[in-house]
């Protein structure tokens, strides 16, 4: 996003005032051109994105949540940078022991180092969250966007299909579908999330494409003889993508939580994969003896989910045209 110095200007001053107010806030300059035209509109291009970026940069919620997320991304790429141990190297002799030098979070029931496992668990959560969100966003917005743009029978069919998917309870669906899977990788879980998650995005993408499609500038492009792909890519997508981004960001946090839920229930990820959900599940058995083994992965999970949801909130506030 281009970075622009902020300059208050009449153009967006109507914020917070009712539509009935007849204030000509944007009528800031004269139509006369030629000499003396020193008071034209400000020359710095300002688009929705640059306005949103200005808003975000001043929002502490955004700054905190993005710092947390940045940290998570870094440690999931190089977990060894802050955790030198091996999450799979466990010694039963240390089982359920409290914190010790070099092992600040103590040991879990298998005698594995909780600190190392918590750090390595971030990779799984971030991978699942990001991949599931990308899959959902791409599949959902392509299907929903095309259905919204072309309408007709395909739109009707797609709408009915999304209704069917909305009727499936997520956890029950996970128990049924994932219990037959034997692979221990993250991909079946991601696949399941994409399968059940795309209708949510598709519905939003469809709605915002239909709204954008009705704008006169799309009609104007059509009257010029623009092709469907030009209208979709140049005119509709840039104006319809904001709600999809907002919902996808918030959904990312919920996918991470869903992975933990499924792993806890034993149908998500399976050892030897390191995951917060698996650790929470196994630690809950001996929670009275070693509460720390439950506390750290749950805490990491809660902070991560919260960070993504807060980021989504901040992005929504910045992109929501009704608030600006």
């Amino acid at each position, binding site marked *: 996003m281009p970075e622009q110095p902020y300059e208050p200007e009449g153009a967006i001053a109507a914020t917070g005032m009712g539509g009935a107010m007849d204030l000509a806030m944007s009528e800031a300059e004269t139509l006369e051109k030629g000499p003396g035209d020193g008071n034209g509109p400000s020359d710095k291009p300002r*688009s929705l994105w640059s306005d949103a970026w200005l808003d975000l940069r001043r929002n502490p919620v955004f700054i905190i949540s993005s710092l947390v997320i940045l940290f998570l991304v870094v440690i999931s790429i190089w977990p060894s940078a802050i955790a030198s141990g091996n999450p799979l190297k466990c010694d039963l002799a240390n089982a359920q022991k409290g914190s010790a030098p070099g092992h600040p979070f103590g040991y879990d029931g298998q005698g594995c180092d909780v600190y190392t496992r918590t750090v390595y668990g971030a990779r799984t959560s971030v991978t699942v969250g990001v991949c599931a969100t990308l899959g959902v966003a791409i599949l959902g917005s392509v299907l929903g966007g095309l259905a919204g743009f072309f309408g007709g029978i395909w739109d009707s069919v797609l709408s009915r299909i999304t209704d069917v998917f909305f009727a499936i309870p997520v956890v029950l669906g996970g128990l049924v579908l994932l219990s037959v899977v034997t692979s221990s990788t993250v991909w079946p879980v991601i696949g399941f999330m994409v399968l059940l998650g795309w209708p949510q995005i598709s519905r939003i993408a469809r709605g915002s494409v239909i709204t954008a499609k009705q704008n006169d500038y799309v009609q*104007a492009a059509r009257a010029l003889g623009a092709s469907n792909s030009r209208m979709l890519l140049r005119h509709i997508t840039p104006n319809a993508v904001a709600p999809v981004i907002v919902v996808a960001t918030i959904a990312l946090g919920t996918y991470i939580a869903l992975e933990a839920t499924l792993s806890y229930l034993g149908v998500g990820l399976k050892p030897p994969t390191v995951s917060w959900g698996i650790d929470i599940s196994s630690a809950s058995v001996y929670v009275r003896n070693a509460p720390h083994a439950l506390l750290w992965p749950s805490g990491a999970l809660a902070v991560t989910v919260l960070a993504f949801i807060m980021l989504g909130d901040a992005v929504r506030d910045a992109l929501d045209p009704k608030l600006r």
Partner: protein
Amino acid sequence: MPAMTKTAEPILEVTGLVKHYPLTQGILFKKQVGAVRAVDGVDFALGAGETLGIVGESGCGKSTVAKMLVNLEKPTAGTIKYKGEDITKMSGRALKAVRRNIQMVFQDPYTSLNPRMTVGDIIGEPYEIHPEVAPKGDRRQKVQDLLDVVGLNPEYINRYPHQFSGGQRQRIGIARGLALRPEIIVADEPVSALDVSVQAQVINLLDRLQSEFDLSYVFIAHDLSIVRHISDRVGVMYLGRIVEIGRDAEIYDHPTHPYTQALLSAVPVPDPEAREHRERIILTGDVPSPANPPSGCRFRTRCWKAQERCELEVPLLAVPAEFRLTTDPTAHDSACHFAEEKHVVPTDDLDDGVK
């Protein structure tokens, strides 16, 4: 005003134009249960260099006619001939070539410009769609020339639409319409969203561009005063049909259709002296639904002259029999069985501004 140059060969000829929007029921398998007859048999011709005004109240179908002229809607029936060729049957390359010559100016300057594109991209887009018109290197210059032509500073090329006021945005929309050097511009209520003092600027601009670029206009509006100002000929629409059409003085000073008379008499005139001695025809009721228009003459449900014949027989748009032998301005097309002239616009106490 540019001189009226009505040539023998019309540049655009519309015959029997019809647009019905089907009303459907059902979720997946839709069944047609009726139709909204938005446009139901419209004929007119546009001469080169001429301005044809189309007036009517909301729901009369005037905007649908505009959309069909620029191919945003496919007619249900009828032909639109551009220089003798029917554009409703065209597709592919031939259609694209015709589109270049018929451009549109939209009503709402706030929704007709893409907020994510700079002014340069908006006005330059026609060249990207029709690359044969301008080689890539020339485009920036062409866009700046167009900005200059419509009265905007050419340096504004990198700005976004929200940095402009309504009147300036409408100028940008006009510049986009001019980019391909069209012969015909269809303007759908181009000034109705603007402030009074800005309207005059845009109307004057449209006037100037017409003579500068040899344009023919189809000017659609509900404001009868503006239509008179800019038009050479005027068509009055009611419920999907043209009820009266003729040169501006024929329609405004010698209307023969009761609907035109009522419409003209209802327009508030900015002259308080006129209010005492003006005869006003106040119509009763509302415009019927275009999904279920009255039989015969569509205006009969609100017409004070209506008789049984109006219910049974559709009046044709032609010079009424009683005026057919005269040459005075009453002899113009009017779709009424009982057409008669009635003066409704006060003219006597005003200096004659016609040049």
